[in-house]
């Protein structure tokens, strides 16, 4: 049923499975290695559930040193390693192969250091995103990136995919909030990069590791920048009778000199689903924007008034400013339940392309045309301030050929994003899902240097080897690695 190919598992590795498991078990504390088929099945997929394959074994270490031991054993025995955080990847970033060992970070759960005087927190990377901010709550600080899976997703996964969230218009994404990492190389060597200082004099290796999708190393500890919590925040809801006008409003708000913390967009398909699901009381119109601003009560009022003046020039169907915490919750209620509401309509593929903000109206129009051509409905709900679109393609997984058609439609949308001057993925990562589209965005030389860099960190190509780079493009590198002694 799947259209994305994975390489044939290495028969040599499969034949040596008992020895590999024995070697891992001998080197690691009891309970660290999982190898029974009933248990490894729990790791057969991530949130891209259309693709599944149980790994040869799963290792769940509690320390950096145990990660290093597992990596060293896998390196010596030439076993591919698939790093895994919480397994919430929507791109198949943590999808195993039958000949791979999954090394998970979920037991690396310690908060190592909270230093508000120097404004950083150091954690093991199996800590969840939300737990980091929870740890800082009493200090009046928070960790800014807030992907919507923040209750479950780990810092390790956030670093691998350079996660964003709703508030990155003001606070940036993971790479802007990551100061240092402790990594385990494919060979099992442990290396410290960056730290609590505001920069490095040498090459920015922390910046290279962030967003590298487990291709270069496993990150076991992270030093994260923390920021003071704002005094308050309140949203406004603005409804428009056309997608273009809503897009225009986004551009005008940004040009006006305001810097909202979030500008979220929902289209009519999404609005109808949300209304049926949670009765959020949203207007019945073509597009809704939710714009959130921060500060003191007076600062918020001032910013909302300026947004009102901008919006009213564009004749909105509705302009609703929150005055209280309850009204804020009501405005956010529909947006926060959008994905759940869409799930009720059937199966969906969630895309992640980014386009320049100025190209939003054009891109939305083209997606509508493609939707008609493919005969598949699509809902748009996304972070408009930064152009990161999340079109949801609705399909029926039980209808023969519909998944394939939805995937083709998705690929067309991502090509459209690249043609508009954007990119294939804003925050979910390439994984396997967008792997074969990389040649659309990058030339052979662009990809060659990226693969050469992977070879610097992972000469044997054992780390997440069938991801990110199209298989035929990475074939020479993987073959050369296989011939290495």
């Amino acid at each position: 049923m799947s259209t994305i190919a994975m390489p044939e598992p290495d028969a040599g590795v499969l034949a040596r499975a008992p020895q590999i498991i024995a070697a891992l078990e001998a080197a690691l504390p009891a309970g660290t290695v999982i190898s029974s088929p009933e248990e490894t099945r729990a790791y057969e997929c991530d949130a891209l559930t259309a693709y599944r394959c149980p790994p040869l074994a799963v290792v769940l270490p509690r320390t950096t040193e145990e990660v290093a031991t597992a990596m060293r054993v896998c390196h010596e025995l030439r076993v591919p390693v698939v790093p895994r955080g919480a397994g919430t990847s929507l791109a198949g970033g943590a999808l195993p192969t039958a000949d791979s060992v999954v090394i998970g970070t979920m037991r690396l759960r310690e908060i190592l250091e909270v230093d508000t005087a120097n404004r950083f927190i150091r954690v093991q990377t199996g800590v969840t995103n939300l737990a980091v901010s929870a740890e800082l709550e009493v200090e009046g600080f928070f960790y800014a990136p807030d992907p919507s899976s923040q209750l479950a997703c780990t810092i390790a996964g956030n670093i691998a995919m350079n996660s964003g969230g709703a508030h990155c218009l003001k606070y940036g994404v993971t790479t802007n909030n990551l100061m240092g990492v402790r990594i385990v190389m494919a060979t099992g060597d442990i290396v410290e990069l960056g730290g609590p200082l505001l920069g490095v004099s040498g090459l920015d290796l922390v910046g290279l590791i962030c967003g590298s999708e487990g291709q270069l190393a496993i990150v076991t500890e992270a030093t994260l920048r923390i920021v003071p919590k704002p005094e308050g925040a309140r949203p406004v809801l603005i409804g428009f009778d056309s997608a273009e006008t809503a897009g225009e409003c986004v551009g005008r708000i940004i040009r006006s000199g305001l810097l909202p913390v979030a500008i979220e967009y929902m289209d009519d398909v999404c609005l109808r689903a949300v209304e049926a699901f949670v009765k959020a009381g949203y207007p019945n119109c073509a597009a809704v924007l939710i714009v959130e601003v921060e500060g003191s009560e007076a600062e918020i009022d001032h910013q909302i008034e300026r947004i009102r003046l901008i919006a009213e020039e564009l004749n909105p169907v509705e302009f609703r400013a929150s005055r209280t915490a309850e009204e804020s919750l009501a405005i956010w209620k529909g947006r926060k339940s959008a994905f759940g509401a869409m799930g009720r309509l059937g199966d969906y593929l969630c895309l992640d392309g980014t386009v320049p903000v100025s190209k939003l109206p054009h891109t939305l129009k083209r997606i509508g045309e493609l939707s008609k051509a493919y005969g598949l409905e699509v809902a748009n709900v996304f972070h408009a301030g930064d152009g990161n679109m999340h079109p949801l393609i609705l399909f029926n997984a039980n209808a023969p050929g519909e998944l394939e058609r939805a995937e083709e439609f998705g690929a067309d949308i991502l090509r459209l994003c690249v043609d508009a001057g954007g990119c294939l993925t804003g925050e979910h990562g390439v994984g396997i899902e967008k792997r074969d589209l990389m040649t659309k965005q990058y030339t052979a030389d662009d990809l060659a240097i990226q693969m050469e860099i992977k070879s610097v960190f992972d000469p044997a190509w054992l780390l997440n080897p069938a991801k990110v780079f199209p298989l035929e493009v990475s074939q020479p590198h993987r073959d050369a690695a296989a011939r290495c002694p």
Partner: protein
Amino acid sequence: MIAESYARAAPLRVVGGSTRIRSEAIAAAQTLTSRRLSGIVTYEPGALTLIARAGTPIEEIEATLAAEGQAFAFEPMDHRAVLGTKGAPTVGGMVSANISGPRRIHAGACRDHLLGVRFVDGRGRIIRNGGRVMKNVTGLDLGKLLCGSHGTLGVLTEVALKTLPAAESQQTLAFHGTSVKEATEIFAAALATPFEVSGAAFRSGTVWLRVEGLSPQVDYRRERLSALFRDREIDILGEPASRALWRGLRDLHHFAGSSVPLWRILVKPSEAPAVVARLHALGGDVSLDWGGGLIWFESNANGSAVRHAAGVGQAALLRRGTLPNSEGFPAEGASVARLSAALRRTFDPAGILNPGLMGK
């Protein structure tokens, strides 16, 4: 030209406007400057995006942004006064050296605002990475590597940067008669507030805190900070005086017109008092920026003494004076140095791009 130099393994001196790199220290027969690759390619204020050729003067870009009420939030420093150089600083040079000013503490560094790059590597391959959008995790992030690589990995030809609304208004709180220890305490307290302090510097017994934003916001933030430090005497600098002050602090006017070696030392802010005490013992003058996380140190002391005083901090030499060129960058740990050297060989196998500038 690079492909040809690669074939001959002939070193190249890679520079932008020649206002920062001590290019005479690079052993190369030929100089490659991006100065003529000039001009803004695209500027979309509504998308907060600017794309420019690498040789575009920063002054030209800043004027274009200012006309739309926008700016580079990381406030790039102009090195001409302190280094006694002429010429026009370019956007490519700014990215190559990851140049950021006082607002780095609030808004991030140049590397945080870099969206995409186009460059020529040491083999002459033309490579594009990243793009023009704020959220992008499509492949490895080479922009981060290029930013701060001082021309050793490739020659930038085009850069895409995020722009932000320029602050409508600003004011500065000045605290006089403070010690370095008191200064770091004031910084830590101020930077833990939600009032978005966008400058936190110290020199000669005075602490400055800058607040910026929409006009009513600035008044509010100034009042709240004044209340927080109500037991101290505070002078308020209004609009023009505040702007001039931070321009001078950004460009180190207080260390201009001298050839005494000038060090840039990154420390944990809480360690600044101890490091400054050790530096003072060597003889010389200091100023602090980034809430104490950045110490500028002007001194004739030798490099090993300065690095010893810096402790776990990182000391890099900005103005060399009479010190040898090898003092420029601090040594890296063995594993990091090995990785960096291997990456340099990947980008520049023949070792022709600013050889020896950053390390092997």
